[in-house]
């Protein structure tokens, strides 16, 4: 990059792929912080996005045996904010495994956090591929 401090603009897209391990979810948070800063989000919104993207990764990992899979994070700058997707790839799903009480509690809390912090979010699972997504508008534009 010519200017490391240059802002990101609508249409810019950043991708990150990493092994689907809990100790690496911090990478998704770090990249999201950097992108949100350059996309014009304020400090509070940046913190919201940092938390939300971690929850997005957890949503993508739910009910999966991700020891051999990858998480792919894709951040797309929009005119009014950012769209983020987190996809679990190359992992086997274990849909027949009952989640523990703690896991069910955490999933419920994760849903509450995302509902509070972002404008839209969702999760899709099809043929073993899981994709969780969110969209957050900048406060100055959210009305």
């Amino acid at each position: 990059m010519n200017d490391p401090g240059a802002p990101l603009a609508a249409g810019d897209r950043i991708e990150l792929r990493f092994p689907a391990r809990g100790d690496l979810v911090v990478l998704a948070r770090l990249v999201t912080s950097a992108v949100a800063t350059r996309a014009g989000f304020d400090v509070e919104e940046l913190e919201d996005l940092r938390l939300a993207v971690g929850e997005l990764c957890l949503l993508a990992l739910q009910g999966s045996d991700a020891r051999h899979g990858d998480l792919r994070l894709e951040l797309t700058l929009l005119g009014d904010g950012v769209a983020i997707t987190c996809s679990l790839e190359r992992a086997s799903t274990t849909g027949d495994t009952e989640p523990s009480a703690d896991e069910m509690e955490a999933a419920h809390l994760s849903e509450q956090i995302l509902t509070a912090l972002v404008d839209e979010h969702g999760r899709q699972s099809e043929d073993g591929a899981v994709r969780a997504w969110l969209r957050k508008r900048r406060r100055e534009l959210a009305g």
Partner: protein
Amino acid sequence: MDQEFHIEERPGATAPVIAVQGEVDVATAPQLRECLQRVIADGWSTVVLDLLGVTFLDSTALGVIVGAHKRCRELGGELRVVVADPRLVKIFEITGLTGVLTITDSLHAAGAP
């Protein structure tokens, strides 16, 4: 630079204090769960969880805290959560846990000077 994750157990006047530092997330929450389970299994029904040194919490960490709170209540005690950082307090608020957990902003208020 984020503080490294660390857990320290301290004796308290009426309840043990578990002091946590750093980021508590899907990677580190299992260590907190193990620590809380061990202290409760040792016979303590009331535990003070000091989060004053915590810089980040996710839903996994909250799930561990809620689980420990439930176990303490079953034993007739409570889990007293000490948290002051507005960013972290906000997470407890948006998940409705401020109405469920005993949350204070100082160790003194939690009975653990």
